[in-house]
């Protein structure tokens, strides 16, 4: 069936199976948009230390000292949507059925401006759509975009790697909400196969950065791709999920 029924990868099509509830499973017929393997890391400041842009400059300096060539800027955005209710601007959310999510994420990736991703965290679902999707949401008026966070900075080519070091700032402000980086390894798309080389790179990176004695460190938090129905082949959907994970980490670090 072209309707991806919840269930195993090869659901048995019986009269009963059409309606029986099952745990979620990998989605079928995913558009094959393979991309090079990528890790996202966020800056975790030491307790009590506030973020500042000096960390950003030091990290960029490290990239250059490792032989990286700066080759431009990048920007990825995350948009928070909140549900709207009939009786007000989303205020009376207790009137909404409990299964309507209180938050949706939209993700616009720098590497694919024509695409738009939307994540339902509570359901571990990542939708891939066109950039026009945000217009569809505007027309529907069921969810409204409330906060727009930009991840932006410089990118560096380093042999088979690409590093993007960036700050997290709400749109149209300069308030620093976080610091993070992307590490992309061009030759491989398999997450498992690229793991060893990513770990090696990360070790070198940490050693180089440690010489600066900065009050914190970069951390890579694994996203549970399988829960989102994603395979070992890296894709833009994986990146969207990593941004959601990264964001959660940054928010937690700010609150701590």
């Amino acid at each position, binding site marked *: 069936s072209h309707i991806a029924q919840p269930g195993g990868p090869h659901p048995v099509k019986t009269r009963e199976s059409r*309606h029986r509830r099952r745990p979620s499973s990998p989605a079928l017929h995913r558009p094959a948009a393979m991309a090079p393997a990528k890790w996202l890391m966020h800056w975790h400041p030491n307790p009590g230390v506030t973020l500042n842009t000096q960390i950003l400059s030091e990290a960029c300096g490290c990239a250059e000292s490792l032989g990286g060539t700066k080759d431009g800027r990048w920007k990825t955005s995350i948009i928070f949507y909140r549900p709207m*209710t009939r009786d007000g601007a989303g205020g009376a959310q207790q009137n909404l059925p409990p299964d309507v999510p209180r938050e949706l994420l939209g993700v616009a990736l720098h590497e694919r401006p024509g695409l738009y991703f939307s994540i*339902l965290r509570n359901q571990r679902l990542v939708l891939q759509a066109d950039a026009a999707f945000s217009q*569809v949401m505007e027309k529907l008026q*069921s969810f409204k975009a409330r906060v727009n966070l930009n991840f932006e900075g410089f990118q560096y080519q380093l042999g088979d790697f690409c590093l993007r070091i960036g700050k997290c700032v709400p749109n149209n402000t300069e308030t620093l909400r976080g610091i993070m980086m992307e590490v992309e390894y061009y030759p491989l798309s398999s997450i498992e196969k690229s793991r060893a080389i990513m770990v090696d790179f990360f070790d070198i990176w940490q050693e180089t950065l440690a010489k600066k004695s900065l009050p914190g460190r970069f951390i890579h938090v694994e996203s549970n791709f399988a829960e989102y129905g994603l395979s070992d082949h890296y894709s833009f959907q994986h990146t969207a999920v990593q941004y959601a994970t990264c964001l959660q980490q940054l928010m937690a670090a700010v609150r701590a």
Partner: protein
Amino acid sequence: LTFFFLWVCTMQHVEALEVLLQGLSGVPKERVRVHELCLKSVPMLGAVPSEVRLLCDLAQPTPSWTIRHVGGAMRGAGAEQISILVRTIVESKASSNVLRYFYGIGYKLDHEILKVGFAFRFQRGAQFTVTVTSANKMPKLHATDEAVQVTPGIQLVEITAPAAANNYNDVVSAVTSFCEYLAPLLHLSKPGNSTGIVPTAGAAAASLMSSGGAKTL
């Protein structure tokens, strides 16, 4: 992007219409088999109730999904002057989990149909897509293989052409003049203005079929 979306119900002379469109477009027809799911927002969600359509293209080896939002009919002085109904459409391609996504954000299935027929895509002053389909309903949820025609003998003709603010008027004229070529077989008009049936359609159809489309009407 604004899309023209206008329709008329035509009946009977589907083969003749196909011959006519083949002649006008100069392109081969494409098979159409689209599963259209119409979803509505749950009560209390949204500033206003909303509706969204999910279209699954079943004509290709791998099904592909499109999200379509159809806006209200264009109104005002400009709308009165043109003889066709114009609505805005916003569309986006989507991954195959799009139905689960909309269920997950508070939409429920209102109805679903299977549209089966053919389409012609061509350039003629505007980028036209003319689709001629029968609407089929499913006896069980999502059972596209078991769909049956809702109104046997009656086909739906849909003509869409993308337009932006800066070429809107040009596209309107292109669509209006194209509709005149279809006049022998069917009337494209606003609902409530006239019927879709043309008195001489039968004769026109017979003429088209006998000449195999070589003759121009």
